[in-house]
């Protein structure tokens, strides 16, 4: 089954509905039930204190996109919101283009808000210009993320959810957090019946400069992905483990209090991709899924997996 067959089967089963643009989907209650089941399942494994857990808005401060280095490294993936900021004198030109089928969006201006690039990018600004403890803190965060990479492959959604466990603290603590979560995340996903491999990976940095950053990331083994078949037999990433070294600490000016720059690491579960991988593995008929899997996810026949 290739990605197009898989997409067709998702639509036929009513699990996803075409959102009208490549990479954009509306979720059925049944699909949402899987996503929320995975969310509950990984939350139980994370055991983070309530005051270290955040559900971020899909829209974030544009400045965070800049500080995270995302504009510089991934200008082709970002989404910045725009709106009409003119007055009565400027409106007719917009309406003229709108009515003539012209490009009315040229009359809009970029706002100070952007679509969330990665859930953890909302976390670092909270500590900007401050010190965090060398002992380290773990945060559990979730966000609706956006990547401008339109594709008919359902595994490559433009809008998707990321559930992360993020460590802020010492270099040793950040590295250990990532290593621990590669193991724990792999165990959790395998227990759902998924065929998981752990591979060293790189982010899709832009252009020739990006090639160099990607090669550096690979050489230093800063990023690992947990991959499984999603929309085709070729495995795709359903979770990723990243050691940022001092990148976020430098960009957001976060120290360890003794002059040393904070290090950070994150482990992110791609909730929608995990749901898709589970559907590929266990079928589009959720009623026929193995009971141990549905029990782990707390799913039942009701919408959103209420039980």
């Amino acid at each position: 089954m290739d990605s197009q067959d898989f997409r067709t089967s998702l639509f036929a089963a009513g699990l996803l509905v075409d959102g009208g643009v490549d990479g954009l989907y509306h979720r059925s209650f049944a699909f949402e039930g899987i996503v929320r089941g995975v969310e509950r399942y990984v939350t139980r494994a994370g055991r983070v204190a309530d005051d270290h857990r955040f559900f971020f808005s899909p829209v974030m401060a544009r400045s965070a996109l800049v500080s995270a280095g995302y504009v510089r490294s991934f200008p082709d993936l970002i989404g910045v919101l725009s709106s009409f900021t003119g007055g009565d004198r400027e409106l007719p030109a917009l309406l003229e283009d709108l009515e003539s089928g012209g490009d009315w969006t040229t009359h809009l201006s970029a706002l100070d808000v952007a679509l969330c690039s990665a859930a953890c990018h909302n976390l670092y600004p909270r500590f900007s210009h401050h010190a965090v403890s060398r002992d380290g803190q773990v945060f559990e965060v979730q966000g609706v993320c956006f990547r401008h990479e339109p594709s008919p492959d359902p595994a490559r959604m433009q809008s998707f959810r990321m559930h992360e466990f993020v460590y802020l603290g010492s270099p040793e603590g950040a590295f250990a957090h990532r290593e621990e979560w590669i193991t724990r995340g792999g165990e959790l996903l395998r227990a759902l019946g998924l065929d998981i491999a752990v591979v060293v990976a790189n982010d899709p940095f832009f252009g020739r400069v990006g090639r160099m950053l990607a090669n550096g990331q690979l050489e230093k083994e800063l990023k690992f992905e947990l991959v499984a078949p999603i929309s085709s037999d070729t495995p795709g990433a359903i979770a990723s483990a990243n050691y940022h070294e001092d990148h976020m600490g430098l960009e957001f000016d976060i120290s360890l209090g003794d002059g040393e720059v904070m290090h950070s690491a994150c482990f992110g579960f791609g909730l929608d991709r995990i749901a898709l991988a589970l559907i590929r593995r266990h079928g589009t008929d959720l009623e026929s899924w193995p009971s141990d899997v549905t029990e782990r996810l707390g799913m039942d026949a009701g919408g959103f997996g209420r039980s």
Partner: protein
Amino acid sequence: MPSLLDTIRGVVQAHGQMPVDVSGLADSADLYQNGLTSHASVNVMLALEDSFDVEFPDALLKRSTFQSLEAIAQALETLGVSPGAH
């Protein structure tokens, strides 16, 4: 005329955003250990391309190419840059 290594040293000093004085570094000193970041190494790479009118092929766009002044010189020589005066 400055040597190839002197010219490279000048480019790294100007574009490497390094916390140390590059003129005091040995040709073989590890630039990353002396504070060269991944993003700054990209600036160095682009500045070297402008200075020497060359283009680094994909195979050379890696961390080890910019590990030291000496390593950069070796990479430039493979692109046809003369090791002599510049």
